[in-house]
């Protein structure tokens, strides 16, 4: 237990370090995180609502709104743990210096996961506030619950980023990962349209942690609580989180030590 607490404490120091660097360009850093969902909501949600008609008794903007919280978690965590981690590892040699201190590889990776959890949670809270202001958050409790779900959703998404960071040979190759993995996940996981469960896509998206996070956030925002479905999506999200974080931990561990 003492060892775990020490690891947690050292991992938290990594979070503090990242925050100190992040806050130097705070507005530049949060702009895309908040602007992208706002643009999607404005252009697609409000723009198309009049044409699309209702989905499950909701306007298109209402349907789209929870997906923006999930999207924030996806992009915040993926970009932070792919480009951000790669830059810290390769160009800034931050970890080489960090690893000369009592911080080890375990704490570095734990710290990175904790950092994306906190960042995604805070960004999700910001987006939820915007949704509340726009009248697109019918369940006010979602303001508190969604950031927590977004935090957990950010973990497997960050694991994808870390795995990519451990595989790519140069920074441009992240574009390939984005185009062929992140973009399809983003567009096809139920953010923009309801996925029919018995369709082929409905089966495929079960293997996407993002889909399960989207569903949990949708239920929370819409104030719907089908227990069995929530349990299924929560279990799947936790399972993906454990599996993918474990794999990425091993990969990054090998990358940081030789």
């Amino acid at each position: 237990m003492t060892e775990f607490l020490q690891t947690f404490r050292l991992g938290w120091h990594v979070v503090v370090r990242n925050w100190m660097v992040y806050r130097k360009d705070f507005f530049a850093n949060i702009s895309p995180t908040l602007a992208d969902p706002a643009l999607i909501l404005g252009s697609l949600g409000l723009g198309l609502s009049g044409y699309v008609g209702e989905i499950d008794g909701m306007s298109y903007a209402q349907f789209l709104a929870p997906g923006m919280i999930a999207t924030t978690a996806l992009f915040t965590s993926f970009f932070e743990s792919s480009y951000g981690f790669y830059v810290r590892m390769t160009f800034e040699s931050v970890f080489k210096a960090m690893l000369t201190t009592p911080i080890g590889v375990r704490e570095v990776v734990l710290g990175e996961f904790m950092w994306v959890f906190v960042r995604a949670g805070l960004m999700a809270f910001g987006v939820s506030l915007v949704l509340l202001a726009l009248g697109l958050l019918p369940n006010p409790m979602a303001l508190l619950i969604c950031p927590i779900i977004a935090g957990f959703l950010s973990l497997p998404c960050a694991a994808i980023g870390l795995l990519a960071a451990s595989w790519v040979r140069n920074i441009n190759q992240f574009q390939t990962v984005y185009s062929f993995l992140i973009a399809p996940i983003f567009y096809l996981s139920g953010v923009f349209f309801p996925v029919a469960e018995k369709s082929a896509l409905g089966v495929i998206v079960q293997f996407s942690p993002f889909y399960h996070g989207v569903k949990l956030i949708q239920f929370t925002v819409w104030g719907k609580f089908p227990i069995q479905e929530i349990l299924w999506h929560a279990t799947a999200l936790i399972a993906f989180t454990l599996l993918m974080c474990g794999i990425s931990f091993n990969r990054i561990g090998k990358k940081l030590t030789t």
Partner: protein
Amino acid sequence: MSSAPIISARGVAKRFGDFEALASLDLVVRAGECVGLLGPNGAGKSTFIGCLYGVVLRTGGDLEVFGYDPAKNAREIKKRIGVVPQENALDEGLTVLENMRIYARFSGIDRKSADLRITALLQDMSLETKRDSPIKTLSGGMKRRLTFVRALLANPELLILDEPTTGLDPSVRHLLWEKVTDLRAEGKTILVTTHYMHEAEVLCDRVFIMDKGKVVGVGAPKELIAKEAPGFVGIFPADSEVKLRPHLNGAWEFFQQGHNSCVRAPRFDDLIELQKTTGVSALQLRPTNLEDVYLKLTGSELKEHD
């Protein structure tokens, strides 16, 4: 030397696939010593340094630092060492103070103690006026001095310097040598890797000359020079070999250094006489140094960027 070993390596080896970075390295560093690892890039110096605190996992041999195996107890070791890595790896967007506070936190130093320690070390390195300056505004020499400050934050017992003065101008190099000498006087144990033979001669009690993952010579700089390459060296122009060769004494040594022809003789007067006899003026006459030892032991020229 009877003090306790701080570092004890027996047959330490590291392979990267087919490449043997370290081949059965034996080395003991005792408390209070300053030991140098010399050799060109690729000699295995930094690989060994990495093995000491667990970022490089050895593939053979036994290694203990403060009695701990770095592969199993790296954290216990890292609590007691300070490292100046090859790259400064400072956070460019943060100020000097912010950088140092982060690393003090990593080392478990509370804020109040950290600020006192940082202030003292910045003064010692003549950086106190840069306390609130962003790293990106510092010169290369200032960044290197700050990396020393970072390594000293936790008042380490063992200081590991990985090519500490590479690329620095002579004034900063001399300043850092002075600081290292002071740290030695305080009783700290120091392990330094360097390309610069003169640096090793100035700083180190003992040196290990490494080449291609192997130790090819060990000893105190003066002893090594006296044993392996005693005497004086004359450096002659490139086209002088034909004129020099017939006049060389059997005990003398002839070798090439770059394009120049070099002669090592036991006495300074031997080289003066050689100039008179051959009519060839030396470009330089000097006592032998560690670089000559290196050349003799490895049979190759020492290059900074091999």
